[in-house]
């Protein structure tokens, strides 16, 4: 049922526009490739709808050009919000100087995200500007926009071709960020035809040069429906740095509620 309510929304707004402007031409004439791209993105979203909530631990290993590594550890909990971006709370465990720092994000498809940061030494909650989606997450090769909730409306799409990627039958879809401050002009996504999950993403910077490649591996299926990767490996082609993100302790439908994603819960985060 939830899937249907979500799908109903764009239709409803389209209906509203056509009622208001009965004689106007369609706002945006979609090509076949664009329609196909959007269709694939909707199917990806549909197959990941209904997880309700999940918690997981994440370990990041940052590697620079010289091969020196540093490690970060966070715990995250996410609440699915139907018809809007998800809510998430992230607690930083390591490195120890930022231990206890926590962030709360209400992501939105087209509006800027709302984001708060809790600084435990000062016991201070700070509302922070959400423009910085293109900046590095904890000094890693992942930008905030790479790891935030992926809503269909965050991009426009174009289907490119079918391709076999390491033996996996894939759709190759290009997507263009709708967010004006995005760090990317475009992304090329390889989507597993069978499971409708991303296998690889190429990121192109503002100058349209290949910047990074993200590879997903060790996919596991939870609750017989939701696919989550164990490992996400990001390489920056321009700097030679890389970040490996390892996920563990995935738990779904843990009973989290709105109350667990409030300002007070941010202060309690531990």
């Amino acid at each position: 049922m939830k899937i249907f309510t979500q799908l109903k929304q764009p239709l409803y707004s389209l209906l509203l526009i056509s009622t208001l402007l009965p004689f106007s031409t369609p706002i945006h004439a979609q090509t076949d490739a664009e329609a196909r791209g959007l269709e694939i993105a909707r199917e990806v979203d549909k197959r990941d709808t209904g997880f309700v909530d999940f918690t997981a631990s994440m370990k990041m290993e940052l590697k620079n050009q010289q091969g020196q590594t540093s490690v970060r550890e966070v715990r995250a909990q996410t609440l699915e919000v139907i018809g809007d971006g998800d809510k998430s709370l992230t607690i930083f465990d390591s490195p120890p100087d930022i231990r206890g720092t926590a962030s709360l994000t209400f992501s939105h498809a087209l509006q800027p995200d709302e984001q708060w940061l809790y600084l435990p030494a000062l016991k201070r909650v700070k509302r922070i500007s959400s423009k910085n989606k293109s900046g590095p997450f904890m000094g890693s090769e992942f930008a905030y926009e790479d790891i935030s909730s992926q809503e269909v409306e965050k991009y426009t799409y174009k289907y490119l071709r079918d391709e076999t990627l390491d033996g996996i039958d894939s759709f190759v879809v290009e997507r263009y960020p709708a967010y004006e401050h995005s760090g990317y002009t475009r992304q090329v996504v390889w989507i597993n035809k069978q499971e409708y999950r991303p296998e690889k993403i190429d990121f192109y910077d503002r100058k349209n040069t290949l910047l990074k490649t993200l590879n997903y591996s060790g996919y596991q299926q939870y609750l017989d429906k939701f696919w989550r990767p164990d490992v996400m490996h990001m390489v920056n082609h321009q700097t030679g740095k890389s970040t490996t993100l390892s996920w563990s302790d995935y738990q779904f439908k843990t009973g989290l509620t709105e109350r667990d994603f409030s300002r007070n819960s941010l202060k309690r985060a531990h």
Partner: protein
Amino acid sequence: MQTKPASFLLALFCALSGSASAAQDSWQDGEWTAETTLQLRHFPHDPLPQNNLQHNNSASLAMQLEYYAAWDNYDKSLTFTPFVRLDQHDEERSHADLREFSYQQVFSSWELRLGISKVFWGVTESQHLVDVINQTDQVENIDGEDKFGQPMIKASMERDWGILDLFILPGFRERSFQGIEGRPRPLLVVDTDQAAYESPDKQRHIDYALRWFNYLGDIEIGLSYFNGTSREPLLIPGSNNSSPVLIPYYPLMQQAGLDAQLTTAEWLWKLELIARDWQALDNSAQLVDQRFVALTGGFEYTFVGVAQSDADLGLVAEYLYDDRNEEATSFFQNDLLFGLRLAMNDAQSSEALLGVIHDLDNQEFMLSLEASRRFAHHWTASLEIRSFNRVDNNSPLAAIARDDFVQLDITRYF
């Protein structure tokens, strides 16, 4: 150890032991963490002749431990955070405190915190006018950011109409002041042993406070009210064994506060406004009733990814106003802060904040630079420089005009 309301702690222990035994099954392992900091300070100028016991170099060592345990699915938790500093010269700066020793329980529609704790109110960077629950641990640093733990009973409700926090604050904490060898400090030593109070209950006066907070889209608003003994003392001339000293006097106060922030993609607009009724010293050093208004307002604008790097550069500007003008007990009555905040967003979390507070009445300015960087997984270094410039001889800053300093902190985390 400073003031310790023993009966309050006893009550806390009773509450705890009851809850813990009832919920042993779901007890999650408690965790100890710690950090220790070596601090070196250098004062390039010699002290004033009358303060010749002060030093040009000093070292100190600080340690903070934290024990945290939660049970019943994190609905109940205990935090214990002792802090201690040993200073090479200043016996008043060698001190210990319980920054936190509290029990928290979350109920279905509200939460309760019982014990010694810390809260922060407000939004601005240059000063924290509305933030009046915790006493300032002033010997730590003159920026007022370090606070003593405050005994409290705090109830918090979070509903559609916002968050309402109610505080009962039994047990008053005195502000800490540098000793005779301490630096920077007022011209005369503050004799904390002679501390005086308006309330006949002195440190046992029970204060209360409430705060409502809500946000609507991009706007956040907090309204607060405090009724009790002022955390900020008046410093009254007195004597100790016939040598002149300053005696801290803590009047009762009522303070209403407003803090608000508007957040857009690049801009943060901030405002803090207070009105306070309390006592003040008139021209003949007599205590008189006073009402004053003060505000801090300004913005922070962030350039994301400057010069095609990962770094963010923030511009901070705040205006600081106090309608008491020259009679203001703070340094800031008509001042402007201009700051630059650089975040490299690199693997070492390198950051720097450069700030200048400029007095628009007499052209004094204070300069501060704070920079920090992680240099190994368990280690950070931070550098702080403060300097006081073009200080007028009649200004309240005159006492610390020669107390520019450079401070290096090396911290190891466990």
